[in-house]
């Protein structure tokens, strides 16, 4: 009986020797091995929110690093005249867009409008943007976009030295920009003290003795200038106090057939009293005298109540926050890891003692630590106080997390194997256990950075810590300033620091969540 399955005798020629090379071993994996960190990276980049968060963080960090180099302003800079100047960007301002142009909506009565108009007429500036305004039906209320930079006008009469006066003359001749404008004779000025030295009032007013002055207008509705002028042809005593130098090319005016010159300064105690248009004077001052790199008054994010540049303050504050948080995080990481690994690895009495210690230290509210440190380190840098306080309360969390990781791994077989093979404690701790817990621990470092920045912001907001003395500032200080500016209708002061903080927290939350998921190997393959 012979069929397909029961072959009784197979002819010898049917047999063949297999080639030695044909021996079939386990084949190599065609795919590349995916390491823990590669897998983590792959999982992370699939999480869109986390990636966006990471990009936003990178932008904020870049802003903090680079912005201080691009702005000539410093946190210590302030100029009370340019207080509450609105944000201005030359791109928008020159394109004539009604946004980010250094202007603000202004609602005022006829007097306020006339004053702005008078100032605009004298200086030729666009104080009322494009000269456009709307009047309410009864003519009492004027609405227009008011330029906060030019609107400052002249401020108070300024007293400068003869040398500075000459230098401004030189500057005017060289650049063709007019800084000094004709002054008003003391006797012709309004009588009240606060109006007498107000350099913006160069015109005749209806009643010079009242508090709120109403400009006088002629038949055509024009302002009547009240300049101090003198007759050139007469060698008389019209200008007894100081014979003003004039601006080159300024030929005075013809009136009643006589040639008049304007007086550009008045001799007073301590120098010459002038009317300097603040915009030009500021430019002159910073370019010619201080030479601090500030070319013109241009505040990208506006200024605060005290005339600080918000952009510079925010950039320096952010830089401080990032550097501070990273340094504290690194120090906390190192100390926490060492503490936690010893406590977790050895366990027993050592663990109990170390746990009690960190528990007690951890129960002290941070604010109390900061206050005590502040008392004891009265004259030391506030940043140092903050650093020590955050270190003292911060490393405990890190130590706890490391300890957990050590408890998780220390009794696993591979650790026992390593011990059997004679590995030392230090080798087991840092070669065998620590790398396994690293992902979790690193994630927690990333997650504590925003909370650290936030508590730093809170403490500076509360005024417990004040970094301004250390020639930097903090986002919290800016927010506190912003809160005070609410009532002055200057919401933008708080806007930028708040936006920074929100963006930072939001993106760090997304980023941290993504990181946590990415370093969780149990999720591996779940999204594929």
């Amino acid at each position, binding site marked *: 009986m012979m069929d397909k399955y029961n072959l009784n005798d197979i002819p010898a020629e049917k047999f063949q020797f297999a080639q030695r090379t044909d021996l079939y071993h386990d084949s190599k994996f065609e795919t590349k091995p995916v390491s823990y960190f590669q897998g983590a990276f792959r999982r992370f980049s699939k999480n869109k929110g986390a990636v966006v968060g990471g990009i936003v963080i990178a932008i904020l960090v870049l802003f903090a690093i680079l912005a201080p180099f691009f702005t000539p302003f410093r946190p210590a800079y302030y100029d009370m005249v340019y207080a509450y100047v609105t944000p201005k960007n030359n791109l928008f301002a020159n394109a004539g867009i009604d946004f980010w142009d250094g202007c603000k909506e202004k609602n005022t009565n006829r007097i306020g409008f006339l004053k702005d108009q008078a100032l605009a007429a004298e200086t030729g500036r666009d104080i009322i943007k494009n000269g456009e305004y709307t009047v309410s039906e009864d003519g009492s209320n004027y609405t227009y976009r008011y330029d906060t930079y030019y609107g400052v006008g002249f401020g108070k009469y300024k007293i400068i030295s003869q040398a500075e006066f000459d230098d401004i003359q030189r500057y005017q001749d060289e650049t063709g920009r007019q800084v000094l404008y004709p002054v008003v004779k003391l006797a012709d000025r309004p009588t009240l003290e606060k109006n007498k030295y107000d350099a913006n009032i160069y015109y005749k007013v209806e009643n010079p003795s009242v508090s709120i002055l109403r400009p006088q207008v002629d038949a055509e509705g024009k302002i009547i200038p009240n300049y101090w002028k003198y007759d050139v042809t007469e060698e008389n005593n019209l200008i007894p106090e100081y014979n003003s130098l004039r601006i080159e090319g300024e030929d005075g005016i013809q009136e009643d057939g006589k040639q008049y010159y304007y007086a550009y300064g008045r001799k007073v105690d301590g120098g010459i009293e002038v009317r300097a248009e603040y915009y030009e004077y500021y430019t002159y001052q910073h370019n010619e005298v201080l030479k601090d790199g500030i070319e013109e008054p241009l505040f990208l994010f506006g200024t605060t109540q005290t005339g600080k540049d918000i952009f510079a303050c925010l950039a320096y504050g952010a830089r401080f926050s990032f550097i501070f948080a990273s340094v504290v995080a690194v120090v906390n990481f190192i100390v926490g890891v060492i503490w936690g690994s010893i406590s977790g690895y050895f366990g027993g009495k050592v663990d109990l003692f170390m746990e009690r210690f960190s528990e007690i230290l951890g129960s002290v509210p941070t604010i109390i630590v900061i206050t005590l440190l502040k008392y004891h380190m009265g004259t030391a840098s506030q940043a140092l106080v903050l650093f020590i306080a955050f270190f003292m309360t911060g490393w405990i969390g890190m130590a706890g997390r490391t300890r957990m990781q050590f408890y998780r791994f220390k009794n696993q077989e591979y650790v026992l194997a390593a011990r059997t093979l004679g590995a030392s404690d230090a080798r087991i701790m840092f070669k065998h256990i620590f790398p396994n817990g690293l992902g979790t621990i690193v994630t927690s470092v990333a997650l504590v950075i925003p909370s650290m920045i936030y508590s730093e912001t809170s403490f500076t907001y509360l*005024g417990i810590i004040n970094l301004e003395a250390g020639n930097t500032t903090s986002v919290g200080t800016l927010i506190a300033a912003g809160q005070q500016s*609410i009532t002055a209708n200057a919401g933008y002061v708080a806007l930028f620091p708040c936006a920074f903080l929100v963006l930072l927290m939001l993106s760090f939350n997304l980023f941290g969540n993504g990181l946590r998921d990415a370093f969780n190997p149990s999720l591996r393959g779940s999204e594929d």
Partner: protein
Amino acid sequence: MYMFKYVMKRLGLMLFTFFIIFTMCFVLIKLLPIPTNALPGQDPEIVMKTLEGRGWITNIREGENGVWEYDRVPILLQYGIYLKRIVTQGDFGIVTTYGEYLNMNIWEVFVSHLPPTILINIYSTLIGVPIGLGLGILAALKKNKWQDQLINIFIILLISVPSIVLALMIQYVFCFKLDWFPLMMSTSNEYFTWEVFHSMIPAVFALCLGSIAGYARYTRAELSEVLTGEFMLLARTKGLTKRQAIYRHAMRNSMVVIFPSILSEFVSVLSGSLIIEKMFGINGVGGLYLNSITFQDYDFFMLLSGFYTLVSLTAGIVIDISYGFIDPRIRMGAK
């Protein structure tokens, strides 16, 4: 019985921790120079005598040029005197440098500032807990539907926007732009009048938004986990309607985790929020604390830091202990 033992053990440990922290604060404060400068209008002799009476210094004498000299009492002795006064007379000292309350009893000043802080926080808990739980339950029941996604976005936004910014936005929009509420809380002592309540609303609103988000996130996570439990399947199989199963089985089990956090939040309402108090000008404990720091009124600082530490410690153990009471499955401290 093990529960009683566990609670006692935790309480004992807590008091021990508190005692150590309190002692540490006292010693660190007493290492500082004693503020003996008389404020304008104060007689330096009275100031010195007061300090002597408190037991901080001894052997005072007027030296040359009217400079007062004194010897310091050993710190441990001072601590003994301080504790004795607290225990026997409830006396925490008097205000020495905080101008507004000069020479007043610290404890009385402290107690008079408690009501605004506590009220604000109670209102915010009363509003925050139901809304937060409600949102969380809704999100868990409608998991992955549009309601859930909407609530999730809301939660992420509220949690990520720091309370400092949130409060500022509320103040700007509701108190300044719309002018619905006053910018600062009224300082009147009639806490239960409409005027005061009205001025509290923005602060309460600012405070509860954060806790709403927290509760909602917590409830959603817990409830959605419980809903997938096998006993839920059993409950449906034995004939309960979905509603019954959720009310009787799922909710109760998810509350095991949520309830302790509500309790601990309720304890920590005492300490309030420094930021909210400062922003809305609330005349509460937070402001008192900040001012006592600026004025360097050390006795005041001692009382307030003891208070803050105690509140935060209590809030911590309340969570642990209430777990054991609510959920019999959790045998705390059992071997």
